[in-house]
C-alpha cells in the first residue's frame, strides 16, 4: 500500500543519510524521495513515498521519530501533493493534439530548440502517471520525474 510521509529534520550534514539508512537497514522500500531546506528555519523537509502494511508503516514512522535529528513526522494526514515531470520529445513529428494535452494537464513548454522540445507538467503522481501514458504516442526521448513534494493541509 502506498504511503506518504513528510519529515521535518534538522538541516545538517548527514541527516538525509540517517533517514535513508533507516529504510535500507530495515529493508523498507523508498518509491520517491525529495528534500530541501525550509526557508527561514534551521530545518529541512524530507518527503518520502513508501509502501508497506500497517505494521511496517508504524515501525517506519516510529523509527523516524526516534532519530535524534527529527523534529516532526507528518503521516496519515491530508497532504497537498505535487510532482514535476519533464519530457523531451522530438519536434520533427506530427504534434497535432499536443496543445490540448498540455492544457489538460496544465503543462508548459519549458524549453525548445531546433530538434527537441521539453514539456513540464506539475500535478499529482496519479495524474503524472496518466500524462506519461498519454504522451507515449509522441515517442518521448527522455523523461525525468522529480519525486513527490508534500505539504500537510
Amino acid at each position, binding site marked *: 500500500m502506498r504511503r506518504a510521509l513528510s519529515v521535518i*529534520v*534538522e538541516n545538517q*550534514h*548527514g541527516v538525509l*543519510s*540517517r533517514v535513508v*539508512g533507516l529504510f535500507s*537497514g530495515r529493508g523498507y522500500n523508498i518509491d520517491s524521495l525529495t528534500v530541501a531546506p525550509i526557508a527561514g528555519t534551521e530545518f529541512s523537509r524530507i518527503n518520502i513515498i513508501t509502501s508497506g502494511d500497517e505494521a511496517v508503516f*508504524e*515501525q517506519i514512522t*516510529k*523509527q523516524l*521519530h*526516534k532519530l*535524534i*535529528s*527529527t*523534529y516532526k513526522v507528518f503521516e496519515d494526514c491530508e497532504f497537498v501533493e505535487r510532482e514535476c515531470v519533464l519530457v523531451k520529445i522530438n519536434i520533427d513529428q506530427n504534434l497535432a493534439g499536443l496543445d490540448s494535452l498540455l492544457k489538460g494537464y496544465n503543462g508548459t513548454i519549458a524549453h525548445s530548440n531546433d530538434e527537441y522540445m521539453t514539456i513540464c507538467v506539475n500535478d499529482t503522481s496519479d495524474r503524472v502517471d496518466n500524462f506519461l501514458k498519454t504522451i507515449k504516442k509522441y515517442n518521448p526521448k527522455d523523461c525525468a520525474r522529480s519525486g513527490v513534494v508534500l505539504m500537510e493541509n
Partner: protein
Amino acid sequence: MITGAKMICEALKLEGVEVVFGYPGGAALNIYDELYKQNDFKHVLVRHEQGAAHAADGYARASGKVGVAIVTSGPGFTNTLTGIATAYADSIPMVLISAQVANSLIGTDAFQEIDAVGMSRPCVKHSYLVKTIEELPRVLKEAFFIARSGRPGPVHIDIPKDITAIKGEFKYPSEVNMKTYKPTYKGNPRQIKRLASALMEAKKPLLYIGGGCISSNSSEAIRKFVEKTKVPAVCTLMGLGVLEHDNPYNLRMAGMHGSYRANMAMSECDLLISLGARFDDRITGKTSEFAKLAKIAHIDIDPTSISKIIKADFPIVGDVGSVISDLLDEVKEFEFDLSTWHSVLDRHESLYPSFSYEDSDEILKPQWVINECAKITPNANIITDVGQHQMWVAQFFKFNEPRRLSTSGGLGTMGYSIPAALGVAFAKNNEVVLNFAGDGSFLMNIQELMTLTAERKKVINIILNNAYLGMVRQWQTRFYNERYSETNLEDVQPDYEMLARSFGCDSFRVKSKDEFIKAYHECLKSPRTCVIDVVISRFEDVLPMVPAGAAIYNMILPQKLITKDSK
C-alpha cells in the same frame, strides 16, 4: 581561547568523567598531547581499540555512568565498531570520540581515513562529525546528554585533526535544549489507569522484567510493586538482579534457556506487563504462540520497541520506574489475591525446579563451579562472555542487585568479557570482579589481560574449558546429527596457564572440586589478575532449551528430571 583538544579534556572533566579507555594514533596526537598534560581523569591504554569500547561499556554497566573511549582515525575507529554495536544492542550509555583526518583531507582517501560517521550510523544512538571549532563544545555537551537520557546508548563524535589543533572560545553549555530530542519520562495517566483496572481484574498477572529496569534504576520501585501486589515476575538475561534471587515472587529467567516455571508462567498468564523489555526472539520463541492467553502491557521509554514484535493492548511510553510507581498508586488500596496463580506456579516449580543439574565427583560440572563462586563470593561483580557459560551463569549465579552482571545480551559479542571486566574493575574499585568465559571466547580479546596487569587491576578470570565452542557444539549435537563442524578445540588450545603467566597474571589449571576451591581462594588472596582454567565436562548442555522457532512452552528439559517425574 583554547584548542579543540583542550576543549575535549575540559568537557570530560565537566561531565565528571573519571576514566577513559583509548589508544593513540596519528590523527589523535593533539588529543593525546592534551591528555598527557592533565590530571583531572585517568586515561587507560588498552591493547586493542575493541577493548576500549568494551571497557567503556563495562564501566558504564557497572557504574551507571557514561563510559568514554578515545581512538584514532581509520583502523583505530573501525576496530571499535563491534564494541559500539554491543553497547547499542544493550542500550549502554557511551561516548566514543574518534579522531579523523584533517578537514582538508576528508574525502581524499587520505592515510587512515574512513567515513567513520557513515560506518557507525546504524549502531549508535547518534553521531557527529565536527566541522568547526565553534560547534565542538555544544556537540560534546549534547553527546553526553543523548548518551545518558531517554533510552541510553552510544554516541559517536568524529573530530578532524585540524579541529583539535585550532583555538576557539570554550563556553560549555550548562544545559541542553534540543528542539528535536525530548524523551518522554512520564507515562500517560489514562493508559496507566486502564492498566490498573486490567491488573485488578487479572487472575494470572505476570511482570516481565528487562534490561531497561536496570538502565533506568527502577529496581527499588519494582521491588515495592511486587511486595505490595504479589504479582510474580520473570526476567530476561539483562534484567537479572532487579529482583533479589530469593524473592518469593521471582520466577527467574525466562526464554530460550529460561526455567520451566518462568516459561510456563509466560504461556499461561492472562496479563503480561513488560517493563523495559523488548520481546527479543530469545524470550518469545515462536511469536504466534507467545503469551497467547494474555493481554499485553508494554512499558518502555522507547516508543519504537512497543508493539514491534508483540502487539500491545496497553502501550505506555515512559520511564519504567515512574510508570510502575504511578501504577502502584492506582492499585495500592486493592487487596490482591493471587494464591491460586501462585499454587499453579509452585506446581510447575516442583515438577522441574529452576534450575537443576546432575553433579559429578569425577568431572567438574560448570554449574557446580558457578554455584561455588556464588557461595564464596556472593557479592562479586560478574562479567560473562558469550556462550554456554553465559547461560549457566545466568541460571546458577545468585544475583541480588542490579548492575552486578555485565554481559553482552543483545549482540552476543564473543570477546566482550576481559575488556568489559577491565571497565568493571575501574567502576568497582576494591570489590571482587569475576569474569566467566569459555575457552573460545577467552582468546578473542586476551590481550587486555596485559592492560589489567599494567593498571594493577584485579579480575578473577574463570575459563569454563570444555575444549569446544560449546553453544554451537550443543546445537550441532541436537540439530545437526553431531557433525561438529569447526567447534572441536581439543588438542588445539594454548596452555592457558602459561599464557596467563606471560601476561603477568597468577594462573591455575584445575580438574577437581578441591583444586578449584583451593585455586579460587588463592585468587582471592592474590593482588594480581588471575586466571583459572577449569577443565569441565565436555558434553554438558545448557538446559532447559527451547529450540529456535519453537514455542517457549516446548522446552527440552534435563533428562533425569523428566524420568523422575514420569515415574
